[in-house]
C-alpha cells in the first residue's frame, strides 16, 4: 500500500464537521446495567435482612410458647425440649469452653508465628510461609473434625486414661479448633504488624534495643488494635465453628465444666437436630432458631468490635 499523506487520508476519511451537542444522550442500555449492578449490591442487604427476619420470626415462635420465658432460657441448666426444659446454659457453656480451649492454643501460637514472620523471617521465608498459612486456612473444617475424632481423642484418652476422658469430649474439639484458628490469628496479626512503619522499628533498633525488645516493646504495642481484632475474630470464628464440635465434642446437651466430658455446643446442637427428618413446625424446629439468633447476635457483635479495631489501626497508619 502506497503511503498516503495526512491530507490525502483526511479526504479519504473526512472528519465529521458537525459538533456534538453537549446535551445528555439517552443511553437506555446503561441505565439498565446500572440498575442491575445496584440491584446486585442491594441483594446482599436482603441476605442480611433475610437472616434477621428468619431468625427472629421463628425464634418468636419459640419465645412466645407458653412454657418458655426469657429468664428460664438464660438460667435453666437443662436443655431438653421434649421435657419442656429450655435452658441455653449447657449449650452455651460448651460453646464457651471449647472456644476458650481453642483460644488458649491459637492465640499464643498464632501471635508468635505472626511476630516471627513479620520481624524475623527473611522475605524469602515469608514468601513461602504466608501461602502455607493461607493453604492451611483453606482446609475444610470437616477434615479438622475427622482429625479430632481419629487422632486427638485417642491421644487424650491414652494420656489421661479412657475413664477420665469421654469418647466425645470438649477438650479434643477445642484443641483441634485451636489449630484451625492459628492461621487466622497469624495472618490478621501479621497484617497489623507489617503495617507498623519501618521508621518506628529503626528508631528502636537505633537506640540499641535488641530485635526482641523492638518487636515486643515497640512493634507489638503499636499494632495492638490489629492484634485485638485478630483475637476477637478468632473468638467469633470459634463460636460459629460447627463441624469439629459436631464430630468430636458430644452428641447431647450436658451442663458441665469438665473439658474431658462430652457436651454439645450451640452450633453442634443446631446441626445435629436438623440432621434428622425434622418437621418444619413445632418447638424442636423453633428452638433451633432461638439458638441461631443467640449465636448470630454474639458473632455479629464480635465482628463489629473487631472491625472497629481494624479501622482504628488503619487510621493510625
Amino acid at each position, binding site marked *: 500500500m502506497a503511503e498516503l499523506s495526512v491530507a490525502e487520508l483526511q479526504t479519504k476519511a473526512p472528519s465529521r464537521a458537525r459538533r456534538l451537542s453537549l446535551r445528555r444522550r439517552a443511553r437506555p442500555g446503561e441505565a439498565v446495567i446500572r440498575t442491575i449492578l445496584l440491584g446486585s449490591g442491594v441483594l446482599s442487604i436482603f441476605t442480611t435482612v433475610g437472616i434477621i427476619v428468619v431468625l427472629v420470626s421463628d425464634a418468636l415462635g419459640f419465645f412466645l410458647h407458653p412454657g418458655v420465658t426469657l429468664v428460664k432460657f438464660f438460667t435453666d441448666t437443662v436443655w431438653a425440649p421434649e421435657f419442656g426444659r429450655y435452658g441455653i446454659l449447657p449449650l452455651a457453656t460448651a460453646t464457651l469452653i471449647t472456644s476458650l480451649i481453642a483460644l488458649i492454643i491459637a492465640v499464643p501460637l498464632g501471635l508468635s508465628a505472626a511476630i516471627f514472620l513479620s520481624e524475623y523471617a527473611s522475605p524469602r521465608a515469608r514468601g513461602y510461609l504466608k501461602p502455607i498459612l493461607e493453604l492451611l486456612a483453606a482446609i475444610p473444617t470437616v477434615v479438622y473434625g475427622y*482429625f479430632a475424632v481419629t487422632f486427638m481423642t485417642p491421644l487424650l484418652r491414652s494420656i489421661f486414661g479412657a475413664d477420665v476422658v469421654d469418647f466425645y469430649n470438649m477438650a479434643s474439639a477445642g484443641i483441634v479448633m485451636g489449630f484451625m484458628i492459628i492461621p487466622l490469628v497469624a495472618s490478621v496479626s501479621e497484617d497489623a504488624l507489617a503495617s507498623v512503619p519501618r521508621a518506628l522499628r529503626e528508631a528502636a533498633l537505633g537506640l540499641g534495643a535488641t530485635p526482641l525488645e523492638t518487636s515486643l516493646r515497640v512493634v507489638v504495642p503499636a499494632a495492638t488494635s490489629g492484634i485485638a481484632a485478630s483475637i476477637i475474630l478468632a473468638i467469633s470464628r470459634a463460636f460459629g465453628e460447627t463441624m469439629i464440635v459436631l464430630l468430636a465434642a458430644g452428641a447431647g446437651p450436658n451442663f458441665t465444666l469438665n473439658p474431658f466430658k462430652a457436651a454439645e455446643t450451640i452450633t453442634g446442637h443446631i446441626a445435629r437436630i436438623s440432621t434428622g427428618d425434622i418437621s418444619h413446625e413445632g418447638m424442636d424446629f423453633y428452638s433451633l432458631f432461638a439458638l441461631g439468633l443467640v*449465636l448470630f447476635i454474639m458473632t455479629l457483635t464480635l465482628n463489629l468490635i473487631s472491625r472497629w479495631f481494624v479501622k482504628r489501626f488503619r487510621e493510625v497508619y
Partner: protein
Amino acid sequence: MARSITEPTPQDFSAVELRGDASVRRRQVIARTGRGVLFFSLVLGLVALLTLFLNVFDKLGGYAVYAFKIDPLTITPSRPLEELSREELLALIEKHVPEDAKALIPEEYGAPLEELSNEDLVNILYNDTPSPETLTAKPLEALTREELIEVLQRNVTGTRFEQLQAERPLEQRTREELIELVEVEVLQRSVVWQWTLFESIFNRDAILAEIASRYPGSDYEFKWWLTPRFIASDQTTRPETTGLRPALLGSLLVVILSILFAVPIGVAAGIYLEEFAGKSRLGAIIQTNIYNLAGVPSIIYGMLGLAVFARALRDFTTGAAFGVPNPPPNGRTIITASLTMALLILPLIIVNTQEAIRAVPQALRDAALAVGATKWETVWHHVLPVAAPGILTGTILATARALGETAPLIVVGAAAYVTMDPQGIFSSYTVLPIQIYTWTKLPEQIFTRVASAAVVVLLVTVLAINLTAIILRNRLRKQI
C-alpha cells in the same frame, strides 16, 4: 533505662565497649531465647498441622485381616450326596467323618463300613459331618467364569446385579476379578482388623507374626482404601463396597450451580461498590453489610436456607411447582443446597472483586474517560479485562470454599443416606464433606478408614484449587 539524659562523661564511653557489659549480654541472651521461642511456636503450629496430614494418610491403608461372613462352600455349585458313586461316598467319609464317629459305625449300622449300602453311607455323612450340604461343593477357586457369574446372579439382589453390570459388564471381567466380586458381594468378605499405614510399614514383621498367631489361616493383605473402584462406585452400607461417586457428582453439581448463581451477582455488586456507589450512603451501607455477612457463621446460612429455600420455597426447590414427580422430602434438593451455598460465598466473591477492581490503576480509567467513554464503557472495556484475573482468583477461592463447607448443608439436609447419583437439580444428594462426616460418625471403626480416603480426595482437591489461586494471584502482583 530511666536515666535522665545528661552530657556523657568520658567514663560512660569507656564503659560501653563494643562487646557490651554483663547486662547487655544478658539482654542478648534473652533476645536469642525469645527468637527461639517465637520460631518454636511457628514450628509447633506447623507440626500440629503436619500431624493432621500424617494422621489422614496413616488411616489410608495397612495390613488387613479378612473373614467371610458366609461360608464359600454354601454358595458354590454342589451335587446331591444321593447321586454320588460308592467310591466317592467312601472317600468323603474317610475325609470328613471324625475318627471317633467312624469307630462307632460298625456298632450303629451292624456292619463294617465297607459292607454298608450306599443309602447308609449317605446317612452317615448326613449325621456325622457338620455341614453335609457343602461336602461336594467346589472351592471358589475351582469355578469357571460362567459359574462365578451364575453364583453372583443367584446371590445378590437384582438392583445390585444391575449396578455391577453397569459399572462394567461381568462378561468383560477377568476370573480373578469375578472371584473377588463374589468374595466381597456374596460372601461379604470383610475386614476384621486393620493396622495403620505406619504400623504396617515400620512393624511389618511383628504384624505378620501377630496375624499368624491371632488369626491363623485367615486371609490378609495390604489394603488401600483410596482405589479407583472406591471413587467410581455407588454408596453402599458396607465399607468394602461403598464408594464416592454420588458424593463427587453431588459436590460437582452443588459447586457449579452455586458459582453460577453467586459469581454474576457478586461481580456485579463488586463493580457497583467500586465504580458506581462512590461515597453514597447506600454504598456505605452495602459495604458494611458485606463485611458483616462475611463474618456470619456458616451454619446461620444453613438456617436461612432451611427457612427460605427448603421451607418457604419448597414447591419451587423440589420442582413440585414444575410438575416434577416424587420430590424429596423437606426440600432437600441440589438446588436448595446450591442457593444456600451461593449466599454463603457471595460476600467472598464481592470482596475479592472489589479488591481486583481497586488494583486497576486510576490512570487507565482516566484514559478511557478522556476519549469520551461513559463510566460503563470504561468499566466494561478497560477495567474489567484488567481486573478479570483477580476476579477469577476470587472465584477459584470461592469454589474451594463451596466445596469444603459442610455445616450449612447439614442444616438444609444433605445428610440423608443417598446411594445413587444425583439425577438433576431437583434430586436429593450427598456431597463429599457430608460423606466424610457421615462415615466418621458411624459406630463401626472401619468406616473411619473409608472416611480417610474421602478426606484425601477432598483435601487434595481443595488445596490444589487454593494453590492455583495463590499462584495466579502472586503472578498478578508481580505484573502490576
